[in-house]
């Protein structure tokens, strides 16, 4: 089975690096983007199985990206997890249409479990 592809976008290089390392060590293939401006086209190009987004990013915020994903038929089915250190991030993320929210700093097990759950469920729902 091919490694699942995960698109990660965060405006902080350190966070981006550590998430990439976590995904690598858990058997996922990570594509990282530090700039959200062209994220939608990057998603289309790389065809990830799941998207991890930071909430507060310059130009295009995480919730705006989720709305754009949900509005695009080609990619609207993709599971999205939003990560944020912001206290009110949960509400904003869920309202925008994210599938899950994790507050920073997050636990690695929690991240991997959430990804696994979402991939399993999406697959399940798609096969129905």
């Amino acid at each position, binding site marked *: 089975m091919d490694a699942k592809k995960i698109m990660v976008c965060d405006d*902080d290089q*350190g*966070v981006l690096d550590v*998430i990439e*390392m976590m995904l690598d060590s858990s058997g996922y293939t990570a594509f990282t983007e530090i700039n959200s401006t062209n994220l939608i086209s990057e998603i289309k190009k790389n065809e990830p199985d799941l998207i991890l987004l930071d909430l*507060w990013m310059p130009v295009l915020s995480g919730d705006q990206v989720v709305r754009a994903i949900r509005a695009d038929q080609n990619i609207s089915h993709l599971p999205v997890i939003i990560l944020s250190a912001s206290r*009110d991030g949960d*509400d904003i993320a869920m309202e925008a249409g994210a599938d899950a929210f994790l507050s920073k*700093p997050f*636990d690695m097990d929690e991240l991997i479990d959430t990804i696994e759950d979402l991939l399993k469920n999406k697959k399940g729902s798609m096969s129905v």
Partner: protein
Amino acid sequence: MNTSQTNFHEFLGGQGDRNLDLYIQALNSANSGIIITDNKQPDNPIVYCNRAFETITGYSRNEIIGHNCRFLQAQDRAQPERKLLSDCIEQGLDCKVEMRNYKKNGDLFWNELYLSPVKNSKGEITHFIGVQNDVTARKKAEHDLIEEKASVEQKIQERTKELRENQVFLSSIIQTVRESLLVLDPDFTVLSANGHFLKTFKVSAEETVGKVLYELGNHQWDIDLLKELLVKILPTNNPVIDFEVEHNFPHIGKKLMLLNAYRIEHDGQYKDRILLAIEDITDRREIERRKDDFLSIASHELKTPLTTIKGLVQLLQRMQDGGITEKYKATLTKVSVYVDRLNNLISELLDTSRIQSGNIELHIEPFDIDHLVKDTVDNIALTVPGYEISVSGKSGAIISGDESQISQVVNNLVSNAIKYSPGSKKIEIHIARISNFVKVSIRDFGMGISAQDKPRIFERFYRAGDIQKKFPGMGIGLYISHEIIANHDGTLWVESEVGEGSTFSFTLPISKK
């Protein structure tokens, strides 16, 4: 015949008759001193005196007869009444004078003297009759009265001066305070406005004093909330404190004001004055908001590198195959614990700031309190294996509130119970429904709280003395919990005995369905 009668008989040249005796007796019975002088003889000598005259003056008759009346003045001759007396004698007129006279023993007495001439058929003045009364007591009373009056007047002047000084003092306080003050009459007409009011609302005294409050500045004070305060609330709730009103003023813009209103009461009676103190908290609120924003951004920024650190530590912990020693692993575990603690401190900082400024938002939604408590406790239990944490009872109630905040409270209380009972592994949580409240109690069997610490543990940054050393933290967990429960109209309290453990309980009102 007594001496006075003899005296009179002799004065009349012995030509007495029976009726005359009666007259003489009448004269001697009088309280007033009576004398007769002979105007035809040189120096107007006294030729008759009655008994009362002897009593008043202390002189006896034989010391009196033949003398001029002035002997009673002793050396005290400089009396203006003497001139009046001598004028009347010269002109043969009636007169009344009050003079200082002296008794035989030298004592001063005030003599009220009536002098009346006696004329013969030719109109010549033959005698003078003098009637004398000792009016010393009356004079003294008059004198005292004058002195009293003068002293009262002086006192009044002093008091008036004091009052005026006080008034100046009070009005300078009113003018100096950095808070707007208005005095209104019962119809809400402005009786006075202090300098700060005029300055803050950019108006002059002329356009303010004497005007009805609501009509001030083109009705810019016609504020519904203000009317409600003055008309509805104040009459039954005197005084009203910290009544918040926001209003957009045409020239000075939006103002957030805290109003204190007071109907002046004296000896239990309302006087016709209303004091209105207006504190402009627009800037303060704005500063609080900026402080919260700043802390919000700061905590977000601090947590970003913390996310990387935490992630890297977790990755290191998983690198088993590199031959990691147990010591190395234990060290990493410690790093991880301190990263989490730093993260909690950053969160608490933001929470405290928001709670203090009242800017914490409540996301009110109905939730199942029993589930929330069980879920929260289960999550904690996973992180502390070996602890015996039990949940008993149930409320079956739905609470209207901020689920995540209530969860934070339960989390705080259970974490505290674990933290402060190092010698015990047992925690008991009980949920109950009491009247229209849910009561949640968290009981530990740890060190307990001393009587002196108990009243203060819900204070911000308060940490019990010996706890400070053994357990790290900022001491705001209980403060935040207390505020959260209060924001939900509940109460949080503690019962504790040193060495036996503590029970923290909170109540929350059950939503009306």
